[in-house]
């Protein structure tokens, strides 16, 4: 079962790089923000899978909850910053 989770985690790690392409070259800012949000979600799942691999899920659930909260607030703050930029 551990190998299964390891393979899934590595697959998700590779998928992050596809989204990273959108962050670096993506046309426009909104693509980048959406891609950063997607990377955050993927990181959350990778953290949980790491918890399964190490056999300490209850510890990693805390970290991933914090990660989800900060991801939400970060995306919101970035959108707010863009809104302010438009006014200037």
């Amino acid at each position, binding site marked *: 079962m551990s190998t299964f989770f390891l393979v899934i985690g590595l697959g998700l790690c590779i998928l992050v790089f596809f989204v990273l392409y959108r962050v670096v070259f993506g046309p426009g800012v909104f693509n980048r923000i959406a891609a950063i949000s997607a990377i955050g979600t993927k990181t959350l799942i990778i953290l949980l899978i790491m918890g399964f691999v190490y056999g300490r899920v*209850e*510890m990693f659930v*805390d*970290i991933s*909850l*914090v990660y989800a*909260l*900060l991801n*939400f*607030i970060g995306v*919101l*703050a970035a959108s*707010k910053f863009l*809104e*302010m930029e438009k006014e200037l």
Partner: protein
Amino acid sequence: MIRSSEDIIIRTVSRVLVPFIQLFALYVIAHGHYSPGGGFQGGVILGASLVLLLITYGPRETRKHISEKSVTVFSSLGVLIYSGIGFICLLLLGNYLDYGKLSGLLHVAPAEARSLGILGIEIGVGITVMAIMFSIFFDISSGGKPPEDEKE
């Protein structure tokens, strides 16, 4: 200048989410010695909940919940708790932050006194970090202007 957001999704989500974020921050502070986290991390999460409030409802509404004066009081209160516990240990003929000496004061075994002392330290650190995080974000987002100039 951050304006309050009119979007109903953001307003509702953050109104529902802020109490849960703060509850989770208290959990992180209280369970700092069993699970990842501690005073600093819990304080950052508490500060993030206030930042979410500021992003969503704007500076004027947020100032009603946590004023300039209370930010100052909280940021000093945490340092006072930290150094106060340290000095109590010093007065009880131990080293600075030597929690084992608190056992006579709290009427518990030295090992439990150490656990309680670390918990007190983490509460102090959490309060300070919360206030400073919010203060930094508020001052940067308002461009360093005093709050009177924000009323436009």
